[in-house]
């Protein structure tokens, strides 16, 4: 097992600092160089030339939230898979690849069955609920 120095994370911090610097620098550059003559109509949100009606922050469809939920589930799955998959080769080299393979397959089969269920029930269709909305 190799030992690393914490210094390997220096570039990450440096890059964050550099990027923040670039963005702030660009901001100040435009503060000094750009004209400032905002009029009332210039600062209204763009709505194809019409005056905007109401706020844009309205209630959104629940489908986006469901997409987010499903994403988190698969995200956690991939996070669990990453360390397992990266030792798969060394397990295989040790001659215990069959064990690892079966465990990984069971793990994935359970998830794939969930996905198959959703597919069968039509939860993966975007249009179905769309039609329902039109009926209302």
């Amino acid at each position, binding site marked *: *097992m190799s030992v690393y120095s914490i210094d390997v994370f220096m570039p990450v911090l440096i890059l964050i600092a550099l990027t923040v610097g670039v963005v702030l620098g660009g901001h100040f550059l435009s503060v000094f160089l750009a004209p400032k003559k905002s009029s009332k109509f210039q600062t209204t949100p763009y709505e194809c030339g019409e005056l905007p009606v109401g706020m844009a922050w309205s209630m959104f469809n629940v489908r986006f939230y469901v997409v987010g939920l499903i994403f988190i589930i698969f995200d956690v799955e991939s996070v669990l898979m990453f360390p397992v998959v990266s030792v798969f080769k060394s397990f295989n080299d040790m001659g215990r690849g069959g064990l690892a393979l079966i465990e990984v397959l069971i793990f994935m089969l359970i998830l794939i069955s969930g996905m198959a269920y959703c597919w069968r029930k039509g939860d993966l269709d975007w249009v179905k609920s769309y039609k329902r909305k039109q009926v209302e």
Partner: protein
Amino acid sequence: MFLTVLFFLSATLTIASGIMVVVVRNLMHSCMALLGCFIGVAGLYVTLGANFIAAVQFMVYVGGVIILMLFAIMLTGNKPEEKVGSFLLPAMGNRRTLTWGLITALVFFLSVGKILLGMFGIGLGKKTAPTDPSLFESTVDEIGTLLLTDHVLAFEMSSVLLLGALIGAAIIARPETSKEK
């Protein structure tokens, strides 16, 4: 040296944005402060040498949970003052919330106190031998090996848990269509 800098940066970010989450009135800004808090916690994981967990923190919490929260905010009411939460909820500052808040604060104080006592050597638990904190070992292979051998049941069970969550999420989205039939 770098370890100290990283630790103090992440700790400051975590605590400052943690306070912001509670103090800020605007829900969206509160969510942004939570984003800062998660990033700070990821930094703290890095100082502990758990770089895989730090990346997991980024992937799941920053990339997933924050987005989900933003979507959830977009789901709420039509009026902007409802959406960004710039008015007082009735539950804010009544007796029941204050009681629960006090109990939470007490538990939190006790757990922090135990850690602080341990730092000053009056600890109740055993002390571990100090190692050079600026060196760490790669934890990925170890996590993977443990997941495939000792903790294989937990690994498979987590898949069942995720299956439940997946079906739950699908059913949440469904009630409208089932009523139709």
